[in-house]
């Protein structure tokens, strides 16, 4: 179980971007982290996976606990070894390796060689497209295939917690649904918890169990997926629907008056 306890993140000792974020990721759950651009979602993920120091960021207050052990001062590769694997935003495939080699790199920290073969088959089972492309250089794969490869690579590490940063970025709607189906299947079959950062609120809430909404470096709303799906504010501000479930007309409402001030 991952627990974020009131964390603050400061870049360069000067710019504070997270002002006390708390959240819990239960074992085996899919948690969605929602919010507008610049709300601090990616920073939260980087704080968990230990990538902040690259941008001279630091967790200045609060704690991050993974099964009771504090990880907010650990290095990224240690955190990776503990079973928290992040698939970075924007498809960082190893472009000079082929698809299969990319996947095998995902199993870099594992000692059980035979299981790696099996898991390779498992990933190919989830993503049949990758099996067709197994000998192709990753740099030449299409955007959708690269996204599949990145998720597949994260799966190869047999993570206990998989963090996905915008897996739908730049993908066709059909492909997005396919990928989300696979994430859900992976979650139920392998019992891996998933922490999902997503702009596409509708699809993220369709597969997740619980969600957090962030704004300006704070969690402003959280609840079960059903609660968030039916919440008026989420509907209006993130899905663009009015109370009736139809597309909203800007003529009728002075929507800025309805906008909640979160504090």
């Amino acid at each position, binding site marked *: 179980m991952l627990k974020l306890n009131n964390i603050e993140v*400061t870049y*360069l*000792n*000067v*710019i*504070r971007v997270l002002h006390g974020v708390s959240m819990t990721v239960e074992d085996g759950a899919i948690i969605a982290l929602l919010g507008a651009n610049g709300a601090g979602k990616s920073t939260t993920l980087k704080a968990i996976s230990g990538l902040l120091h690259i941008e001279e960021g630091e967790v200045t207050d609060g704690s991050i606990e993974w099964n009771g052990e504090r990880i907010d001062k650990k290095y990224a590769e240690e955190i990776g070894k503990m079973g928290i694997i992040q698939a970075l935003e924007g498809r960082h495939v190893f472009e000079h390796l082929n698809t299969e080699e990319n996947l095998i790199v995902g199993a870099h920290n594992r000692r059980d060689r035979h299981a790696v073969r099996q898991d390779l088959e498992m990933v190919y089972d989830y993503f049949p497209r990758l099996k067709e492309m197994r000998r192709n250089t990753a740099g030449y794969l299409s955007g959708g295939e690269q996204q599949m490869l990145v998720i597949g690579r994260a799966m190869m590490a047999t993570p206990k917690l998989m963090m996905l940063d915008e897996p739908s970025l730049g993908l066709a709607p059909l492909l997005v649904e396919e990928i989300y189906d696979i994430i859900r299947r992976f979650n139920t079959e392998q019992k891996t918890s998933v922490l999902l950062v997503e702009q596409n609120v509708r699809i993220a809430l369709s597969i997740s169990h619980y969600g957090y909404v962030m704004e300006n470096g704070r969690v402003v709303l959280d609840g079960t997926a059903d609660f968030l799906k039916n919440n008026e504010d989420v509907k209006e501000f993130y899905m663009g629907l009015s109370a009736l479930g139809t597309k909203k007309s800007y003529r009728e409402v002075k929507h800025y008056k309805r906008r909640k001030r979160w504090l």
Partner: protein
Amino acid sequence: MSLPCGTRNYNYAEDMGIVRTKTHWVLLIAFLVILFTAPLYFGNYWLGVFNLIGITLIAAIGLNILVGYCGQLSIGHAGFIAVGAYTAAILTNRLEMPFLVGLIGAGVVSGLIGIIFGLPSVRVKGFYLAITTIAAQFIIIWVINHWSLTGGFVGIKVPYASIGGLVFRSESSQFYLIIIIAALCVFFAKNLARTKVGRAFIAIRDNDLAAEVMGVNLLYYKLLAFFIGCFFAGIAGALLAHWIGFLNAEQFSFTESILYVGMIIIGGLGTSIGPIFGVIFIRILQQLLTMELVPFLESTFTNFPAGFATGVTPMLFGLVIVLFLILEPRGLAHRWALFKSAYRLWPFSY
């Protein structure tokens, strides 16, 4: 974050201004006063060090434009400085031209040679370009050693710099000459980064494909960066020639080229203040190690073989640089920027 609290832009002139607050003015004037009265407080020894720093600074600024802003790695900078130095020497000694003609000539010739060696940058990038610029270093030094006009291995004498009837003979008069030219170069480089050309350089460095798509002419701007960078090297070379008074290809070694890259990295690539920090750091460190530490070690550890200290100091020098890069990977300019913003925002840093 870049401006002090409460400083606002009310018109374009203010927006473009470099010096913005009263404190800026006070600090600037105080600095200039101290700088220009330096010969009063320092002896010839330290003035010599300052002169070397000034000359190095001019060359480093050029390299910073080429490497820091435009992203074209060059490891042949000492070669281009040599071109400038020998051009000035030939113009003033063999052809008996005035100093200023030699100075400008050195810059132009060096810049043109730079364009020739910059041509590969159109096709190759990064490490590959670095290798081709190493070629510049070796070809230039070879030509200098084997050409009668340059004096070959014997070297060439250079007269004192003079403008009109004014001859820059003493260390302090040369200090003024060098510092004024260095200040002009700093000013030019600071402003270059804020112009269309400077933005084109940075665009090429950050993403050359995107820059090309937006209509930046890569060939033109890369070669322009080579010209400007090597022009500065030429000016530095000419000043060096007149300052030392005697030229020999040994002074422009490959080590020196690498040291120049080291200086701008330590200072902070692609910043206007970076080269100043880097040059002062490296030159003072060199000076302290060779002039202070070597005699100290020799006299303290008398039972070691003679000359061991001269062997140890380069290692110490390397060690300091390595430690520095580990502890301060983004250069001194970054630390300076952090210090400034922390100072301005104190006590509520966020």
